[in-house]
């Protein structure tokens, strides 16, 4: 996609979004969302990530205006309080998991719909639709019916339809979930480039941590209607706020350790330590456990499984005691089931949970 063209001819305002005490209790009394305070910066792409039922979609629908928050919650776009406005008066762009394209209209008619609603003159409308279709590589499909398109093409039409009206914010509700893996990757890249190029404030909901890491300037990890952590992908990955976040994002090993007077004992080894004292649970990423020799290793174990992944070999190592550990070794590693290995732990890359 020609980024420069896109940036010059089509750039959108970066409106910040503020959520104040936005909770949601459904009619039956079930709490879908605990009161939430969050500021989304103008132009930022924020990703709500969590398992199903964590409240991420409810939050998106509150921002969109498809659900209203509990009485004392407020939603602000910039300085404007939009809490009382229904979705049709909020000027948002929305992309749905199931596309929500109108089967009774062609691709071009779908994209023109929002412009028609806004009473844009026919000539201007035609030009803007054409421009948007070109931007999304959909020019040749303008006259097609929706049921003649593939899933990826449909979602691109949905994006075009949402963006052509120049919305204040773009809301995406699991837009890639209905697509197959390969298409998902390529469309994710396209969405990423689009969001960077447009400079629009975007809220993206997904249960896929890979998507969240790739797209989000910041990620809001949610669990059971609560925010578990807000942070950049790096913060979420390297400094998870709690065990839930650590387990939900990537793979995390858990090691038992004992720290006393500036040292930490893991297995038979003793390391210098500046973290909390006493019995601690240590969280270590697979790539932060290094293979070592018997002399400089901290932990001994037996390889229980080795999975060749091309660029690396993922080992499952069973230490003498404690749960199995996942370790990343070089792709060319010849280690296999039953081999005896030693592991080194870098104390600087270990996270301690008392």
């Amino acid at each position, binding site marked *: 996609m020609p980024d420069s063209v896109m940036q010059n001819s089509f750039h959108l305002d970066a409106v910040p979004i503020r959520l104040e005490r936005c909770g949601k209790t459904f009619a039956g009394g079930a709490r879908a969302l605990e009161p939430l305070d969050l500021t989304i910066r103008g132009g930022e792409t924020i990703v709500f990530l969590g398992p199903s039922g964590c409240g991420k979609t409810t939050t998106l629908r509150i921002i969109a205006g498809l659900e209203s928050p509990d009485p004392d919650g407020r939603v602000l776009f910039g300085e404007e309080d939009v809490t009382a406005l229904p979705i*049709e008066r909020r000027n948002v762009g929305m992309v*749905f998991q199931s596309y929500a394209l*109108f089967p*009774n209209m062609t691709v071009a008619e779908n994209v023109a719909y929002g412009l028609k609603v806004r009473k844009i003159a026919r000539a201007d409308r035609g030009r803007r639709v054409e421009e948007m279709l070109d931007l999304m590589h959909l020019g040749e499909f303008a006259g097609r019916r929706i049921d003649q398109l593939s899933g990826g093409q449909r979602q691109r039409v949905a994006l075009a339809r949402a963006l052509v009206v120049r919305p204040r914010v773009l809301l995406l509700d699991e837009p890639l979930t209905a697509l197959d893996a390969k298409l998902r990757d390529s469309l994710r890249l396209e969405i990423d480039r689009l969001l960077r190029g447009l400079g629009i404030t975007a809220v993206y909901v997904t249960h896929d941590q890979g998507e969240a890491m790739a797209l989000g300037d910041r990620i809001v990890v949610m669990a059971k209607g609560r925010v578990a952590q807000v942070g950049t992908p790096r913060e979420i990955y390297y400094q998870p706020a709690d065990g839930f976040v650590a387990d939900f994002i990537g793979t995390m090993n858990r090691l038992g350790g004992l720290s006393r007077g500036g040292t930490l004992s893991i297995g038979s080894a003793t390391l210098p330590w500046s973290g909390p004292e006493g019995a601690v649970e240590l969280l270590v990423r697979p790539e932060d456990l290094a293979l070592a020799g018997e002399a400089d290793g901290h932990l001994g174990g037996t390889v229980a499984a080795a999975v060749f992944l091309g660029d690396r070999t993922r080992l499952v190592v069973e230490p003498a005691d404690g749960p199995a550990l996942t370790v990343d070794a070089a792709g060319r590693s010849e280690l296999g089931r039953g081999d005896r290995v030693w592991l080194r732990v870098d104390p600087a890359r270990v996270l301690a949970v008392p």
Partner: protein
Amino acid sequence: MHSLSNRRGWGFWLQLGFTLLVCALLTVPMAMSMLAGLTANYFVGLKSGLTLHWVDEVLRVYSGTILLSLQIAFACLACTLVLGVPAAYALARRPGRIARLVEEMLMMPVAIPGLATALALIVTYGGVGDLRSSWLFILIGHVLFTLPFMVRAVLAVMGSIDLTTLEEGAASLGAGFLRRFATVVLPNCRSGILAGSLMVLTLSVGEFNLTWLLHTPLTKTLPVGLADSYASLRIEIGSAYTLVFFLMIVPSLILMQGLFRRGRPSV
């Protein structure tokens, strides 16, 4: 499966024979009746010659009933569209126990014998103004009887598309309720509305049970006239009358079949 059905064993011929027999059982009387309407003298038989005389006679004597039937059918269609489509929409958008209950209640006029419904209408509304002697009284009965068919047909289509998300999509683009209803809901339910419309027209034109009790000598519909002619006139006239009825109803039935076939998912 394919190669199996190509091997035509005795089972195939048995089934074919049975199917043809059932078809004959249904169609031969109809064909005989239509033929009778074109025969100069039914008791003499075909050798008396074919004629349009009886059809002509029917059109002369009974054209009033035919026109009234059409008038009621189209008025009934208008009413069921205005009442039925929004009702189906409301039921589709609010799935729940109450919606299901309302749906079942709507089916009641179909389950209860038409005579009973008609009697209830006469007892309840027969004394209201000139209603009893007006064609509107028949219309009320027909709307009551055909409304469930319209609602069901539209509801079936609404249930097969994700109406809620489509509407949310339209709303996100700035469309208010009326615009969404006109540009997204109605066009995407077109096949259901068309199927329901043809059903209502056909049922209304052919309705006898209710109409027989609700009509007055001045508000005779086609089926009531048909019953009269069978009861009191030459069999040729009754048969010619049936022929006219067929000519009115068969095209819409064929159209309806076509619609149902197109409405089926192609995948």
